[in-house]
C-alpha cells in the first residue's frame, strides 16, 4: 500500500467511527432513553404507581418462571445438538443444522400459531388432551412451549461453530488416558465451551423474557394469569396508561441490562481464562 493511500485510510477512520457511533445513538440509545423518559414523565410517584398493581407483579413472576423453564431446557438441547453435530458424521446432519436455525427465520406469530393448531380445541392432539384433562394453549405450558420454540437456536448457534473448530482431539486424548464419558464431558468439553455456553444462555434468556409475538398468540391475555411482561406493557398502553406501560417496560430493559452486566462482570473476573480459551 502506498503511503498516500495508507494516510487516506487512516484519515477516514474518525469519519467511519463517527457514523457508527451516531447510528448506534440513533437506533439504540435514543429509543432506550425514550423508554426511561416516558416512564418518569410524572415523576417517581407516577413511576411507582405502575407497580402498585398485583397484575404487574404477576406478569413479572410469570416472565421469570417462563424463562426459568425454557432457558435450561434450551441450554441442554443446545449442548446435545452441538455435541452431535460437531463430533459425529451422520446422514441428515445438514438438515438438522438447518432445522435448528429455522426458528430464527420463521415469524414469531407462526411459532405461536403452530401450538394452537396442534393443541387447540380443533388441533391434532385435542382428543388426547381432552381425554387426559390437560390444557396447553392459554396456560403457562403454552407460553413455555412458544418461548422454547422461539429461543431454541440461541445456545446451539453459539456452541456449534466453536465445538467444530476445537475438534475432538482433547476429548480423544482424555479417552486414551482412561477418562470415563462423564469425566470427559465435565473436565474437557464443558470447560472448553463454557464461555460460548454462557453467552448463548444469556442471549436465550434475554429473548425468552422479551418475546412478544409468539406468546401473544398462545396467552389468551388473562390479566394476572397468562400475561407476561411484554403483554402487560401492551395492555397498559391500550388502557391509556402510557406512564405505566413505559414504567413496566423499564423493568424489561432493566432485566436485559442486568443480563449484560452479569456477562461483563464474568468476562472481567475471568479475563485471563477467557483469553486462554480463545487461543484455541
Amino acid at each position, binding site marked *: 500500500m502506498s503511503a498516500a493511500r495508507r494516510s487516506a485510510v487512516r484519515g477516514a477512520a474518525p469519519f467511519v467511527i463517527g457514523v457508527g457511533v451516531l447510528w448506534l445513538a440513533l437506533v439504540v440509545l435514543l429509543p432506550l432513553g425514550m423508554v426511561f423518559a416516558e416512564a418518569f414523565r410524572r415523576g417517581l410517584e407516577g413511576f411507582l404507581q405502575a407497580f402498585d398493581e398485583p397484575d404487574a407483579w404477576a406478569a413479572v413472576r410469570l416472565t421469570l*418462571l417462563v424463562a*426459568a*423453564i425454557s432457558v*435450561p*431446557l434450551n*441450554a*441442554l438441547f443446545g*449442548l446435545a445438538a452441538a455435541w452431535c453435530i460437531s463430533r459425529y458424521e451422520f446422514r441428515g446432519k445438514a438438515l438438522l443444522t438447518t432445522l435448528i436455525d429455522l426458528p430464527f427465520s420463521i415469524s414469531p406469530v407462526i411459532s405461536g400459531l403452530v401450538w*394452537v393448531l396442534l*393443541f*387447540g*380445541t*380443533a*388441533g391434532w392432539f*385435542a382428543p388426547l388432551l381432552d381425554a387426559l384433562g*390437560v*390444557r396447553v*394453549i*392459554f*396456560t*403457562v*405450558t403454552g407460553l*413455555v412451549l412458544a418461548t422454547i420454540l422461539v429461543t431454541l437456536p440461541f445456545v446451539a448457534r453459539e456452541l456449534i461453530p466453536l465445538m467444530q473448530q476445537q475438534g475432538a482431539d482433547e476429548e480423544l486424548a482424555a479417552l486414551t488416558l482412561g477418562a470415563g464419558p462423564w469425566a470427559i464431558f465435565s473436565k474437557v468439553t*464443558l470447560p472448553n465451551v*463454557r464461555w460460548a*455456553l454462557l453467552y448463548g444462555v444469556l442471549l436465550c434468556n434475554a429473548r425468552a423474557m422479551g418475546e412478544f409475538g409468539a406468546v401473544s398468540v398462545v396467552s*389468551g*391475555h*388473562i*390479566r*394476572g*394469569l*397468562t400475561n407476561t411482561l411484554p403483554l402487560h406493557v401492551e*395492555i397498559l*398502553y*391500550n*388502557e*391509556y396508561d*402510557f406512564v405505566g406501560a413505559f414504567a413496566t417496560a423499564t423493568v424489561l430493559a432493566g432485566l436485559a441490562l442486568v443480563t449484560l452486566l452479569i456477562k461483563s462482570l464474568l468476562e472481567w473476573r475471568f479475563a485471563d481464562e477467557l483469553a486462554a480459551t480463545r487461543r484455541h
Partner: protein
Amino acid sequence: MFDRRGLLLSAGALAAAGCSPRGGGDAGAASLLNVSYDPTRELYRAYNTLFATHWRDTGQGDATVEQSHGGSGKQARAVIDGLQADVVTLALAADIDAIAERGLLRRGWADSLPDNACPYTSTIVFLVRKGNPKAIRDWPDLVRPGVQVITPNPKTSGGARWNYLAAWGDAIRRPGATEATATAYLTELFKHVPVLDTGARGSTTTFVQRGIGDVLLAWENEAFLAVEELGADKVDIVVPPFSILAEPPVAVVDQNVDRKGTRPVAEAYLRFLYEEPAQVLIAQNYYRPRNQAVAQRFGTRFPQLELATIGDFGGWTEAQAKHFADGGVFDRIYQPSGA
C-alpha cells in the same frame, strides 16, 4: 456445573406449570373468566367489583372475575381454540354465533336473557380534532378530498363492523340510493383509511396518541372515554344525524361452565348486568342502559338520533355472510394500498 441442577430445576418448574393455573375452586370461592372485547375494560373492571360485593352480600361467598380483552373476532377465535371463558361479552352477535357453531354454547343463546342478551347498547359516532377543523358533520363528509378516516379492520374488530354497517345504512337511505351507490360510497370511504388496526382500542390510540387522521369512527362509549382520558382540549365528539343501534351481547359458554361447575355464578353474573346498580354503572361508563329509569337519569349524556338496527340488514347471520365473510363486499372493495 449447569446441567444436573438445571435439569432438576426445569423438571420441578415443568411440574408446577403443568398444574392448571386456576384451581378447581373450593365451595364458596368462585372464579370466572370473562372474555370480552376491547372498549369494555373500564366497564368490567368496575362491574366485577360491584358483582363481587353483590355475590358476597347475598351470602354466596367470594367471586373473582378474571378479564381478557382484545378485538371481538379475535377473542371469539381464542374461545373456539380453547380459551376457558365462562362468559363471553363481545361486540356483536355474529361472534357469539361463531362460538355456538362450534358447539361450545347452544344456538338459542340470545333468548336466554332479556333484550336479545344485550344488557346495554351503544352507537357509532365521530371523534374529530378539537374545533372540528375539517367541518365533519355527516357521513358524506367522510369522503371529501383530504379527509383521513380511522377505523379498525372489520375482519377482526366488532366495532369496525358496526362502523361499516352504519356507513352502509346511511348510504342506502339517501334518495335514489341503490346497492351500487352504497358499495361505491364504502369503496371511497375505505380509500380514505390510512391505517386499519385490529381492534377499536388500537384505532383510538392511533387517532389520539399518534395523531393520525381527521376523524375516528368510534363506539360512543369509546369516544367519551377518549375525551375523558386524553383531555377535552384535544378532541370533540360529533354525533351524526343517522347511525346504528349497536347491541353488544353476552352469553354463558355452556361447555366450559358445565365442565368447571361454574354455571350458577356465571348466569348470575350476566343476569345482574340488568339490575339497577349495574345499569347505573353501565351509564357511568358511557354505554346506553336498557333500564329506562336509569336512561332518563343520564338523559343529556346520550343524544337522540335516528338509528338503523341490525334487523334492517336481515340480522347478523345475513350481514356477516354478505359483507364480512371471505369474498364478501368488504373483500371486494378494500384495497390496502389506497388512501
